[in-house]
């Protein structure tokens, strides 16, 4: 397709190097068995993908990825890691070919799906043509907020965001019910009698 004649502009080079680093980090994560290193590399992976989102002009998504993916979830994974072993158990080598075949099949299906995807920034793409275009056109008149993402999130789809807030609240309540019930009364430290150590 002639649409894909890309020059090696600086942005493309930045994209390529970010994607290469993402791939390298992912391969390293798969090969490592030391969970502390894996958690740290997952944080690196999130930060790299946040940079990639910035290069795709999705700053709101990038911000969320950097704050949640690289920040809080790394901390929560570290906290969870403290409750379990420091090293991953070696897998069953006899199952490796099956897993490899499944991963290759899923990867091939994903690559095949990208052939049908519209080019990046295509105005005729379904995501940009109907609802997206309507939001871009109507936000200045109806909401009068400079950031269209916020207008969609908090106003046009406010009910949706209310649902998301409820989901987060439910997650917090579930964690309290499962783990932290004792500590709510005066901050007493809860620990397992027979820990997995």
């Amino acid at each position, binding site marked *: 397709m002639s649409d894909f004649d890309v020059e090696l502009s600086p942005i493309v080079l930045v994209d390529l190097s970010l994607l290469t680093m993402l791939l390298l980090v992912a391969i390293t994560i798969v090969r490592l068995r030391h969970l502390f290193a894996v958690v740290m590399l997952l944080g690196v992976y999130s930060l790299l993908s946040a940079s990639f989102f910035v290069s795709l002009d999705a700053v709101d998504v990038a911000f969320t990825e950097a704050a949640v993916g690289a920040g809080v979830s790394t901390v929560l994974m570290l906290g969870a890691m403290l409750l379990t072993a420091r090293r991953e158990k070696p897998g069953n080598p006899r199952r490796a070919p099956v897993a490899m075949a499944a991963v290759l099949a899923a990867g091939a299906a994903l690559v095949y799906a990208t052939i049908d995807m519209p080019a990046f920034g295509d105005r005729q793409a379904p995501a940009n043509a109907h609802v997206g275009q309507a939001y871009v056109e109507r936000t200045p008149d109806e909401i009068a907020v400079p950031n269209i993402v916020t*207008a969609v999130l908090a106003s046009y789809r406010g009910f949706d965001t209310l649902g998301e807030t409820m989901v987060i*609240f439910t997650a917090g309540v579930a964690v309290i019910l499962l783990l932290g019930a004792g500590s709510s009364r005066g901050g007493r430290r809860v620990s397992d009698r027979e820990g997995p150590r």
Partner: protein
Amino acid sequence: MSRIVIKVATKILFAPIILYALYVQFHGDYGPGGGFQAGVTFAVAFILHAFCYGLEETRKVLPQRALFVLMMLGVLFFAGTGVATMLLGGNLLGYDVIVPESTHHAGQHYGILLVEFGVGLTVSSTMLTIFYSFTGREPDIDQEDW
């Protein structure tokens, strides 16, 4: 082992992180960000505090009991804004009825600010609750175990 560098760095960074969280919270309709990102950033300031001074000290600053209340308040703030717009005669979360005579949709601005504030409250207190419950379960591990 005195962790003087970490303690000083945390003391310097704590207030700017919270200030940045507030900026992201209340500037969300002009730039990137909003309640979700601001809530997480706010929680990160206290997580940093816990890393440096220990979880017990952070629990004294921001007790779990307060987090319970903040968590519920956030959701109530959001849902309450929706109910308020309904009581004012509009749709659920149809913010224009907050300032009906405005020509530049001031009601939308107020509504978005209120709703994002609810999101920020719930997200930050939930993140801290999850952090408290996960890290409060086991005593600190030895340096050698890493």
